[in-house]
């Protein structure tokens, strides 16, 4: 494992083209992306829909391969999903046939841990994400916010080096979203894991990230990068700090023109 400060994940001159189907032209999703992610860093990929940020995350996870360029983990090319990099999905992707407890145990079961041990570890993580008492519920019996807490516990329980989060709070209501942002901020500070977090919310990006990589669409590319000079752990009070508000404002100003074209003239400037 590489030490803090060294590049753990590297994206080198990566392009990704999705093959066109039935005569439809090829779709370039990413073009010439370069990115170095340090161990222990909380990196946010920020951009409008269609900017390829989820594609980039899928490349880091090993779900797809780049059309050209290379994606590396500790210098080794990423060719397939690996338990060193677990993923939290927007739509939770919990296993509906397993209870919350069994879902969290899945990665531990894959590692071949004895039942007793994985039960204890899962219960511990469920308590960290404040789901104690819901161990025996099925996913369809709990709320969206609770499902995502369970999914976070499931991803982190097998102790991965990197946690990849793909718009994890996109499907949640505003209040739940804020609460879960605070949970993730706490967990990331406590565990020190490398986190790559995809979002289209500027507030979320500034609140959580050590560094924000802003992406542009058509084709997806890295547009600018911002260091977030806010103290860790991030607590709710961070939101009223001057640095926070200035960075949010700056990102808004910078992104507004492109996002306005994205949402189309019909919605106007309101």
């Amino acid at each position, binding site marked *: 494992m590489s030490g803090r400060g060294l590049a753990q994940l590297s994206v080198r001159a990566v392009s990704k083209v999705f093959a066109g189907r039935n005569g439809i032209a090829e779709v370039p999703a990413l073009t010439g992306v370069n990115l170095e992610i340090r161990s222990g860093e909380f990196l946010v990929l920020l951009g409008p829909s269609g900017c390829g940020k989820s594609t980039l995350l899928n490349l880091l*996870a*090993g*779900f797809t391969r780049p059309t050209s360029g290379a994606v590396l983990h500790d210098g080794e090319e990423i060719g*397939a*999903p*690996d*338990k060193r*990099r*677990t*993923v939290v*999905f927007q*739509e*939770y*992707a*919990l*296993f*509906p*046939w*397993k209870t919350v407890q069994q879902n969290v145990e*899945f*990665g531990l*079961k*894959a*590692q071949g841990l004895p039942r007793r041990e994985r039960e204890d570890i899962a219960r511990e993580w469920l308590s960290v994400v404040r789901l104690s008492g819901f161990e025996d519920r*099925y*996913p*369809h*019996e709990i709320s969206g916010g609770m*499902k995502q807490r369970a999914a976070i516990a*499931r*991803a982190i329980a*097998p102790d991965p080096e990197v946690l*990849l989060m793909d718009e994890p709070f996109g499907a949640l209501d505003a209040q739940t979203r804020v609460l879960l942002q605070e949970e993730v901020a706490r967990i990331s500070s406590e565990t020190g894991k490398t986190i790559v977090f995809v979002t289209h919310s500027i507030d979320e990006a500034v609140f959580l990230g050590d560094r924000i990589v802003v992406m542009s669409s058509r084709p997806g590319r890295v547009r600018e990068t911002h260091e977030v000079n806010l103290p860790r752990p991030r607590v709710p009070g961070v939101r009223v700090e001057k640095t926070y508000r200035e960075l949010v404002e700056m990102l808004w100003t910078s992104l507004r023109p492109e996002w306005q074209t994205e949402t189309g003239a019909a919605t106007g400037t309101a």
Partner: protein
Amino acid sequence: MLPPRAKRLGLNLVGAAAILLAWEACAGLDIINPFLLPPPSRLLSTFGEMLGNGLLLTHAAASLERVMVGFLIAAFMGMAAGVALGWWNTASELLQPIIEALRPIPPIAWTPLAILWFGIGNAPRYFLVFVGAVFPVFVNTFAAVRGLDRTQINAALCLGAGSRLLLTDVVIPASLPIIFPGLRIALGVGWMCVVAAELIAAQSGLGYLIQQSRLLLQTQNVLTGMIAIGIIGFAMNAGMLWLERRLIPWRAAGAHP
């Protein structure tokens, strides 16, 4: 006003009673020949008689044993083939056309071959049940595996699942809600096949019972056998539905994960 459920049940009973009464009356008034179609009262007493002397149970047990053996082999092989062809494209492309060509052949058309291949013991009957039951299981399993949620597979893979855990803990349970109706249909088809098979070559079973009764001109026994086939088929379907609810509890709310 009655609650809707009681009202529905009441109407069901009234309808059934009316038909039975009309049937009884027609037989009593010599409108229909009671030899060709014995009245319900006669059937009821025959049913009781055949239950009492154990004839019905012996034959039903023989049929049930055959359907269970054939069905279990079909369920196992249908699911195995469905998972294999659903998972590996090459396997599907190699074998799918043959399967699709065999599928429309009615199981009964296999009877001559079954007897030639397996002789006259129980083996040809197992085989005919198998032929009838295997396709519904295969088709549903195949569709289920093809329709698997890619994100769930990805979730399992990044959590380090090997192919064995992926199969037992993800692919099979994810497919169960679609496989199960296939199993239920398969059991129904298998039941029909066993009765048909027993009509042709058997010394026991409900199919044999009604065939034998026809030769002896015992119409009431023919109908009693038919009623037993209906009741058992109904009970098996209800049992499968119960099992389905027990084995797929997460489907209770019909909600998405």
